[in-house]
């Protein structure tokens, strides 16, 4: 516990440095393009985990907010006639806000249910939105929509998208960190462990859950907008994609559900791997097999995810190398300590 804080600060500083320098060090367009997709998924997994990892509500419908963000940015850019270039990035926060607004009614409905029912309702919402995007007039149906395409050189194109997405990632991570250390975050964790008891301790569970749900939808909507702008086209099946839902959940699970850094690590590994395979072997869905295998390995060997398991390992290693203190509050001896305290 004691040594962790400086380690974390160091990790964040190193992470920021790598984040800032990456496109300068690895400037090949293939690499920077993979990096943009990876950052998009790091944001999504991080935001998803803030809600699902903290509250224990495994939402599998965040593609709704990703798609709403993608369509919001595209439609607004086209209808307002915003010229391709930096101006369109100003719509990214708007995409986030619209996604957040959509998250209010959908969240209200889904959060009336718990556990499996909640999961099923969120999946249903994803398909309802996909179906709507296929069939409504203003979404362009199955032929999709094209946002304006900026006339940057390939290098500048990827680099600009990279830094915008990186800024969203930093903001999202800061948000999840603030939530985690706030009273609000503690209440979310209480809901995860025992919702009924949390109510009995005055936690206004309905509001807390909805707030977290909406907060987690906003960054997802923002990267949805970036995604549409980056690709230069958007189709219903990619905007509202069930694989998106599974991917971000998997990333969080693999890295460590409910941890701060877990989803970042999970998304970094999985998304860059997937993009790499797509580049190497064409746009097959062979990466799904790798997802499955990785997931099985993690569930079998590191059931709580990579980060918690590593922490435990380090903790055990430290415990062995230093002599145990008299008052370490070790679980095995907890009883004796209190029995002594009672008398």
């Amino acid at each position, binding site marked *: 516990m004691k040594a962790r804080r400086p380690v974390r600060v160091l990790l964040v500083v190193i992470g920021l440095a790598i984040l800032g320098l990456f496109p300068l060090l690895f400037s090949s367009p293939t690499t920077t393009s993979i990096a943009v997709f990876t950052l998009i998924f790091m944001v999504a997994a991080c935001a998803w985990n803030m809600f699902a990892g903290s509250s224990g509500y495994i939402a599998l419908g965040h593609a709704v907010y990703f798609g709403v963000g993608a369509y919001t940015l595209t439609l607004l850019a086209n209808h307002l006639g915003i010229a391709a270039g930096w101006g369109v990035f100003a719509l990214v926060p708007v995409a986030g806000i619209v996604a957040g607004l959509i998250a209010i009614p959908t969240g209200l409905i889904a959060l009336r249910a718990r556990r499996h029912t909640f999961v099923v309702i969120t999946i249903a919402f994803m398909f309802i939105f996909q179906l709507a995007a296929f069939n409504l007039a203003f979404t362009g149906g199955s032929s999709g929509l094209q946002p304006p395409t900026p006339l940057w050189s390939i290098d500048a194109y990827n680099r600009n998208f990279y830094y915008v997405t990186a800024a969203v990632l930093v903001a999202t991570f800061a948000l999840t960190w603030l939530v985690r250390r706030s009273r609000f975050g503690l*209440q979310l964790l209480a809901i995860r462990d025992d919702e*009924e008891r949390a*109510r009995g301790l005055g936690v206004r569970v309905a509001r807390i859950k909805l707030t977290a749900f909406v907060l987690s939808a906003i960054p997802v909507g923002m990267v949805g907008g970036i995604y549409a702008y980056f690709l230069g086209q958007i189709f219903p099946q990619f905007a509202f994609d069930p694989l998106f839902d599974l991917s971000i959940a998997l990333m969080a699970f693999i890295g460590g559900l409910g941890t701060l850094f877990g989803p970042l690590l999970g998304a970094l590994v999985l998304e860059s791997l997937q993009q790499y395979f797509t580049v190497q072997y064409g746009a097959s869905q062979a990466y799904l097999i790798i997802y499955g295998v990785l997931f099985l390995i993690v569930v079998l060997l590191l059931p709580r995810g990579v980060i918690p398991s590593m922490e435990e390992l380090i903790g055990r290693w430290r415990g062995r190398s230093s002599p145990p203190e008299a008052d370490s509050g070790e679980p095995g001896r907890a009883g004796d300590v209190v029995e002594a305290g009672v008398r």
Partner: protein
Amino acid sequence: MSTLLEAAGVCKSFGGLQALSDTSLSVEEGQVAGLIGPNGSGKTTLFNVMTGYERCSAGEIRLRGESITRATPERVFALGVGRTFQITRLFFRLSVLENMLVATQRHEGWIRSAMRGAGSAAERRRALELLEFVGLSRLANTPAGNLSYGQRKLLELASLLVADPAVLLLDEPTAGVNPTLINQLSERIRELNRTGKTFLVVEHNMEFVMGLCRQVTVLHQGRTLVTGTPDEVRANPAVLDAYLGGADDDDL
């Protein structure tokens, strides 16, 4: 002395089972009241109705004369009624100290609570004092899931005290707890009572109830059988009947 918490003519049924029928109970301010009765007599159901976890089909729950019949559990707690559960419920993956801090939001709004760090210095100090009070302060950073059963009961009680409720409803606080800890628990309840806290305790441990409570209510088949001092209750033939003669109605 005035009535602090009161159930009047409460009815509650689950399908065909009438769990409570016209049950009444009142708890005077500053008192330790007991609620006993054979298994299945409706004690926990009455607790659930009084704390907003279940809705009653008829009757009223009043706190200081005001109806809280339709209040949610969150609201009931905010008004100053804390409860524990028959099967102890804690946030098992949170540390003992974090468990203590969950209830600290009682006095503030929701937006403000979202903006603030979890547990100000004063709140942490208060939480540690209360942990000291129940003898758990040395385990503050242990996950609550690692505590023994008796320690969990103590933590559950202490985590309510953080919010300083006016009345505490304890559902079988001594079940599964060793005798040393039972004495400790009953000592703590007396001490809290001296500082003005009101209690309503559901118990099967007669020695504990009779030693602690000045007024005992007996429930039988969802009805209030008798209310009186421990001596009156002990001498009442209807009570003996309910416990000894009523077994075929309840357990079997």
